[in-house]
């Protein structure tokens, strides 16, 4: 009878690998997830205010070299207003571009993580699925082997009984052959079996 199957656990190497992986995952979650959330909240920093303030300061610095002639020029204020407006517009546009870029970078990174996570889940599902399959296959194989073994035993028993004449001479004759009915059974008897470990062996005569 074969030994009973034992459930095999992960090897020491696998356990260590998994430990390192979980530790790295914990580190990632504690440190990098926080960073990604900060990046998500980048819009709250109102980067536009900073850029617009800088743009307005630039305009004032460039155009504040006032003179008597400049102050008397009728369209000087209009030019200055247009310059300020133009610069503020550029600053606002750049700020929006930066905020949007940060937002899409954040989403892209978060999605990539999510994508990795779901791919991991499907891998986990695959492992479970193949485990279940293997279990079912093995169970079925064992059941079939039991049935086959029982059938073989039964057949051998019936054959033996038949050859011994339990079902009558006719059946014994069918198994052993017509010529061996009385003296020469086709199934060898166990007594007088040649000894395979004997030096002389079958066919040799011992010299006395």
């Amino acid at each position, binding site marked *: 009878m074969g030994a009973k199957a034992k459930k095999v656990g992960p090897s020491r190497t696998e356990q260590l690998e998994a430990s390192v992986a979980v530790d790295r995952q914990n580190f990632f979650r504690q440190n990098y997830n926080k960073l990604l959330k900060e990046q998500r909240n980048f819009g709250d920093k109102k980067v536009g205010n900073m850029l617009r303030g800088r743009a307005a300061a630039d305009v004032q610095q460039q155009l504040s070299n006032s003179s008597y002639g400049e102050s008397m020029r009728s369209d000087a204020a209009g030019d200055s207003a247009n310059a300020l407006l133009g610069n503020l*517009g550029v600053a606002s546009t750049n700020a929006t571009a930066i905020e949007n870029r940060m937002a899409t970078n954040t989403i892209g990174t978060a999605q990539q993580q999510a994508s990795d996570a779901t791919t991991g889940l499907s891998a986990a599902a695959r492992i479970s699925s193949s485990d279940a399959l293997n279990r079912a296959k093995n169970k079925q194989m064992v059941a079939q082997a039991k049935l086959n073994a029982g059938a073989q035993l039964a057949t051998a028993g019936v054959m033996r009984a038949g050859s011994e004449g339990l079902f009558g001479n006719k059946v014994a004759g069918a*198994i052993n052959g017509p010529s061996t009915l009385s003296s020469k059974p086709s199934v060898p008897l166990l007594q007088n079996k040649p000894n395979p470990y004997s030096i002389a062996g079958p066919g040799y005569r011992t010299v006395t």
Partner: protein
Amino acid sequence: MENVMGMVGYNQSRSNNGLPNVSDPKSAQADITYRQYMDYKKDFQQFELDQIEKSQTDTGLIDQAFEDAPKAAELSQQSQQRSLSRYGAELTPAQAQQMQRSNQRTGKLGMINAVQNARLAQQEQNTTLMSDLINIGQGLNRSSLQMIGSAAQNQSNREQAYDNAKAQSKASTMGTIGALGAAAIMFL
């Protein structure tokens, strides 16, 4: 560490060297991947939805231009008045009227110009944002199709293996019965 699935999937106690003990790597993988996805849903999904909405409806730059134009004109006029008073300049009524008209004209034109520029810039920014989001969405679409494909393939494999096993079992049983029957017939 908390377990998002509400069950103990793997041992999180720590060994001597400070690493977590993982007795069931399969369960650990399932827990970690599930937790990562739930993190995304909790922390980033609403943000993503807001950005999608923003890419279609944002008018921030145009609104800002409407706000900025009168303020810029007013600031410039105040600055010019300060310069005039600093230099003690006296404007004739005609000059003052001309200056006022000029300021009004440039103020209006400036506003129109600023708003038009803002509209163009807004359109460009919204389009860029939308394109970036669509690119991200394409990746999402691809990965989700791969996942569902993988799940379908798993199911198909399971069903096929079950059918094969059933057929094999039936054939084997029939073979055994046949052998037994043949043996029985032989004795009769």
